[in-house]
């Protein structure tokens, strides 16, 4: 490349610097810088009040060898992710398929099904949930009408986490809309042709709909996985900030928050943050790797 061409190629460098300035400042001071600092702090004991003192891998070894609550928070989070993500996606897909064809008033249904997702992240809904599933709440009122005496779901360590799972599944709206968009792109001829060939609805679902939809499923799966690992507000509000009863709702983010901002163990909390990054990274990578086996692209290209 001649000097002149280089010059022309980067003719916009000055302007680009201007336009990127806010982002660059943010990147340096709020993302990259903090990442490095966070990595450093994760090898120290740091309470904000005194200077950090180096403990090497101490935080990391404590986590996996002697911190029972950390192990508990991992268990809670894995259970939450493993149950809520598949149930939510399956439900979203089923509803999307019901809405896909020959339904009048699609717009209204779409709106109604999206409302919980719209409101679901709010504290108001988490508080509603806590009261609704409480001992004298709405759910038990309904169950009592049919003669079932139910426990206080939120206060019972056996069920408390599942009340949060239920809240998460309730918010299947955005996954559903993405599924719906995917379903609309499947040419109806595919279905008709195979119906003529004598394939029943189940076979058509597994042999046509699912494979064509697999890139959309993949996308939804990755998104839900990443966000579920980071859930906080619902567990915080429903357990009143404690992760209780008996730590049964002690989600990873909640424990990290408690370590960092209730006990001011900032070093430990930073180490936890890095473990979370690695966890999410590994799971996302696994899903990406496995996608070669089950995600099909229409053009026959490989993922």
């Amino acid at each position, binding site marked *: 490349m001649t000097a002149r061409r280089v010059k022309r190629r*980067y003719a*916009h460098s000055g*302007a*680009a610097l*201007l*336009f*990127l300035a*806010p*982002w660059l400042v*943010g*990147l340096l001071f*709020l*993302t990259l*810088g*903090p*990442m490095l*600092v*966070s990595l450093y702090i994760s090898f120290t004991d740091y309470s904000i009040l005194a200077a950090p003192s180096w403990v090497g891998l101490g935080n990391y070894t404590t986590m996996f060898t002697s911190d029972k609550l950390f192990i508990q928070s991992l268990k809670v989070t894995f259970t939450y992710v493993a149950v809520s993500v598949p149930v939510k996606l399956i439900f979203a897909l089923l*509803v999307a398929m*019901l*809405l896909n064809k*020959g339904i009048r008033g699609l717009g209204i*249904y*779409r*709106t*109604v*099904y*999206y409302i*919980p*997702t719209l409101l679901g*992240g*709010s*504290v108001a*809904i988490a*508080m*509603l949930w806590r009261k609704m599933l409480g001992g*004298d*709440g709405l759910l038990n*009122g309904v169950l009592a009408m049919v003669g079932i005496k139910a426990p206080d779901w939120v206060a019972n360590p056996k069920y408390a986490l599942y009340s949060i799972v239920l809240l998460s599944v309730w*918010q299947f709206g*955005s996954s559903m*809309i*993405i599924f*719906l*968009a995917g379903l609309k792109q499947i040419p109806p001829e595919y279905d008709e042709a195979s119906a003529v060939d004598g394939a029943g609805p189940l076979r058509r679902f597994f042999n046509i709909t699912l494979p064509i939809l697999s890139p959309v499923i993949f996308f*939804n799966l990755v*998104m839900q996985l*990443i966000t579920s690992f980071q859930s906080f*507000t619902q567990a*915080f*509000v429903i357990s009143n900030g404690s992760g209780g009863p008996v730590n049964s709702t002690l989600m990873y983010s909640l424990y*990290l*928050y408690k370590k*960092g*901002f209730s006990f001011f163990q*900032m070093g430990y909390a*930073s180490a936890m*943050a890095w473990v*979370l*990054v690695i966890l999410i990274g590994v799971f996302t990578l696994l899903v990406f790797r496995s996608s070669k086996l089950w995600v099909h692209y229409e053009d026959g290209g490989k993922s």
Partner: protein
Amino acid sequence: MIGQRNSAVWVMAKHILISGIALVMLYPVLWMLGSSFKPGHMIFTETWFWPREWNFQNYMNGWTGIQGNPFSRFLTNSIVLSLGAVLGNVVSCSMAAYAFARLDFRFKAICFGLMLMTIMLPHHVTLIPQYILFNHLEWVNTYLPLVVPKWLATDAFFIFLMVQFFRGLPKELDEAATIDGCGPVRIYTKVIIPLAFPALVTTMIFTFLWTWDDFFSQLIYLSDVSKYTVPLGLRLFLDSSSQSDWGPMFAMSVLSLVPCFIVFMVCQKYFVEGIATSGLKG
């Protein structure tokens, strides 16, 4: 045809099923709405959402507020915070997106890669150093830690969304403007921004909703009750609630959801399209 009749029955069944699910899904929200008008002692004795007698006392009591702070203060705080965040995201993200989509510069590929990486990064990693930084700047217990990052385009997701959108605009427009003597700044303000309305609106809506509902960072950074936002204020109701206070709590919860509803109803079209095409998180 035999199939015709069959399918009419099937359509009916489908409608019943779909509206049944819809009713069950909406019921909690309806129940909350109803409860906000019920006298305290009736909230947990009735499962039917429609109040037998209407009572506006809950709204009056809730509006009076808690710990000497009227609810209107929490609302005002939330509105100020959300507007600051919305403006910040729209300005800073659209600027960065314009550079990525339309300008040629050194290290573009590296910068773009870094930007994409930050979308995937859980915020937990930067949380504590950011807190330490803001603490040093004495910004804790102000809105600055919640607003300034938005002006620095830290929500890279929106940069990406706008890059995708800007790339779809015809490049000839830029070229024509260049021939007319416009530089990048004027192309950005006079050509790109006016055409980018849908992408800007999507960014505004989601920034507003996410800021309005955000609990985690507000919990960390705000400590004076007088600076509390709606989510923090609501939780205060929960903490102090004796049985009889549930009414005001539900009333203010309903109130806190009103802006989300309005935004949703007004912008529904963009919403559903935005989600379907770009696949936002839930």
